[in-house]
């Protein structure tokens, strides 16, 4: 009897402990050996953003500027372009964008002077794409007084071709994205525009009724974003109205290109500040239909528009469908919209760590990227409030905020994220007024590094140390029938641990551009079994297996035309 009782009690105790520990969510282990090291100074980056603020509290001063990773000089290594604003009234200094050339040794050299990009403007965002298919990435910069299109002349030199291109957008442009929406092999351009603002028409707003503070966008009328169709020969046509994306009420800050309904045609998701977000479904005939409200991505959970900023799209649960990540205002948490595959999205942030951890922060730059190369996209959010004095009226909300990094606990087969920000090192956790953010493997060691811009402050380069303990494969596409960058191409990778995919995309985050090369984390898989590419031209390419930890260059017609191994660690 005693033995029976003891055995019964023992089994019950073990079961109870197991049940409680399961419910407590114990056992989730994030990679602990990865840190993001601030290497800004040692990399030779000295860029400091100038918002032009001089006490007038003009709305554009709150927004900061973006940053782009791209190969400016054609050497195969990602360079950095920082966008800059300027003084409202000249104060004896020039505020220029800054182009940093990658020296292949972890350092950069400022080559702005004489590059052709040394144009003073109130710059906001940047998008990179080879619009004329000449094999060199061109640069589009949104600016308050009028956007600029720079043609890449080679060797790090650029020529302003805005006027000749027919592009004329002086509507407070913010984020932009190159997208071949009609799949004719030429990159078209989407430009998100914010509000109708001018220094002359600036409105007086106040937090305390006595002193001027920055106005929220509700005070200003919205303005239509623009879609430019690439006609070839360097010419563009404004097709915003014809395509059905012209909406004068929108106050757009972000754009993500995705194929949410899986029909092979790129759709557009536009984030709006205090206006409903827009989801434009591509009708495959040069027009779009807006589906944001019906899809459940226009509003927050209460049916009210949020202050949406940066955005990105990726398949975070290997469902085969792209999901959405949206950076929102403080007290509104990130939006993490899961694509149900029925035209409906479910915002899973409120029931997850992502929502709870991001409730008080104001997120501008945001993107999915696989920082630990385990094969599941993680989340990075760059935060910082717009109002310096916000702490006075909302003590829990701060002007300077640390970023957020969420590890995707995908290997457990659950859609679950873990906040690992605190483990990423002291420098990474420093509160800043972040705005733009983008990623690339600048040191060619396989893992993805981050660059962050701050408003009226320095930029930061964070090197990923330890991410490459897992295996990976990196691919840069070269289109032939499709656009040269392969923007819009879907790449599917099969390895022992399963299938994953990603789409080459411009835009995303906030006013920024990440590297167009795709990096896939392979975890412990040492080989890739198959690579399949669906090009925007409709061409389907199937490549055989290859070893992990390589940089591949894949041509639309010739297949793999380049392979290289990591340069340094």
């Amino acid at each position: 009897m005693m033995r029976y009782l003891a055995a019964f009690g023992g089994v019950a105790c073990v079961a109870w402990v197991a049940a409680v520990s399961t419910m407590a969510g114990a056992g989730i282990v994030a990679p602990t050996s990865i840190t993001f090291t601030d290497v800004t100074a040692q990399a030779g980056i000295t860029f400091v953003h100038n918002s032009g603020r001089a006490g007038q509290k003009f709305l554009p001063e709150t927004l900061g500027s973006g940053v782009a990773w791209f190969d400016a000089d054609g050497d195969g290594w990602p360079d950095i372009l920082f966008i800059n604003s300027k003084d409202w009234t000249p104060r004896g200094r020039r505020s220029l964008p800054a182009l940093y050339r990658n020296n292949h040794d972890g350092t950069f050299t400022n080559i702005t002077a004489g590059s052709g990009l040394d144009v003073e403007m109130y710059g906001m965002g940047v998008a990179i794409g080879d619009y004329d298919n000449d094999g060199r990435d061109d640069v589009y910069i949104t600016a308050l007084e009028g956007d600029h299109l720079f043609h890449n002349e080679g060797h790090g030199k650029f020529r302003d071709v805005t006027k000749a291109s027919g592009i004329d957008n002086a509507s407070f442009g913010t984020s932009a994205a190159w997208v071949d929406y009609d799949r004719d092999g030429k990159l078209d351009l989407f430009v998100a525009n914010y509000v109708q603002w001018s220094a002359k028409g600036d409105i007086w707003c106040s937090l305390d009724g006595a002193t001027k503070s920055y106005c929220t966008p509700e005070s200003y009328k919205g303005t239509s974003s623009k879609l430019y169709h690439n006609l070839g020969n360097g010419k563009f046509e404004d097709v915003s109205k014809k395509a059905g994306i012209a909406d004068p009420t929108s106050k757009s800050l972000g754009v993500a290109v995705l194929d949410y309904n899986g029909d092979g045609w790129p759709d557009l998701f536009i984030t709006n500040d205090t206006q409903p977000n827009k989801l434009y479904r591509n009708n495959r005939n040069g027009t779009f239909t807006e589906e944001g409200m019906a899809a459940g991505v226009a509003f927050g959970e209460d049916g009210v528009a949020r202050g949406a900023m940066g955005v990105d799209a990726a398949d975070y649960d290997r469902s085969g469908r792209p999901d959405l990540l949206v950076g929102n205002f403080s007290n509104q948490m990130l939006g993490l919209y899961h694509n149900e595959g029925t035209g409906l999205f479910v915002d899973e942030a409120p029931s997850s760590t992502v929502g709870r951890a991001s409730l008080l922060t104001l997120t501008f730059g945001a993107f999915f990227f696989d920082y630990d190369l385990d094969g599941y996209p993680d989340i990075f959010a760059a935060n910082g409030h717009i109002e310096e004095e916000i702490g006075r009226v909302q003590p829990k909300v701060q002007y300077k905020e640390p970023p957020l990094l969420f590890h995707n606990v995908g290997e457990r087969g659950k859609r679950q994220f873990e906040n690992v920000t605190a483990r990423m090192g002291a420098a990474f956790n420093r509160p800043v007024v972040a705005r733009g953010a983008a990623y690339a493997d600048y040191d060619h060691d396989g893992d993805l590094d981050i660059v962050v811009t701050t408003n009226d402050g320095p930029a930061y380069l964070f090197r990923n140390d330890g991410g490459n303990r897992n295996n990976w494969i990196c691919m840069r596409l070269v289109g032939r029938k499709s656009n040269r960058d392969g923007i819009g191409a879907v790449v599917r990778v099969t390895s022992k641990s399963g299938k994953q995919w990603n789409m080459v995309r411009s835009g995303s985050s906030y006013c920024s551009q990440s590297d167009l090369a795709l990096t896939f984390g392979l975890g412990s898989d040492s080989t890739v079994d198959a690579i399949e590419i669906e090009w925007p031209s409709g061409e389907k390419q199937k490549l055989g297996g290859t070893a992990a930890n390589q940089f591949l260059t894949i041509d639309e017609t010739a297949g793999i035309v380049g392979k290289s191994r990591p340069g340094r660690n």
Partner: protein
Amino acid sequence: MSPEKFGRPAGILLVLLLVNTAYIAAFASPTISCMGNGVLHLALGVTLAIVLLWLIRQMPLPGTLFFTLGMYPRDRVALNQAARILFLQRKYAEALKYLDRICDVDPEDLQMHYTRMLHLRGLDDAAGAGREQTLIQRFKAQESAQAITAKPRLLSPENNNERQQIHDHESVPLNVPASRPKRALVVAGGAQ
């Protein structure tokens, strides 16, 4: 998204287990040996705790919300929260019952219509979802109101967003479809 932390329920159950064990021990027969008695009661308590844990995990709503709705069955905030939680669990049909209860209280509740639209989309009821979308557009505040009324409000401080002859609100006429449920018909009548 799976539940991630259940620390508080686990703590409550631990207390329940101890209370239960103590209770049984207090009324136990003195003929059972001391050690056997302890192990038996511990085992019984643990088993009960496991059953309780399992039952709680089967509940679609958090205990606090369940309790609130028991006390205040017409609380719109709690009902909306319940429907929202069920949406996250993809229990679309179940949530509609809660949304019906909100409709009884306030047929113009914007969040109710928004959540109902999402649930109907989840159920692949395009017509129903379209009807809800129309109602949302009808009842929601126009996001541009502040910007549109800026000038009149500056000129005349007593004006506000609601008081505006210049309001070119993109309002949606309520064409009542034949398939509209009874409750929604009442909404339409009241709004016209």
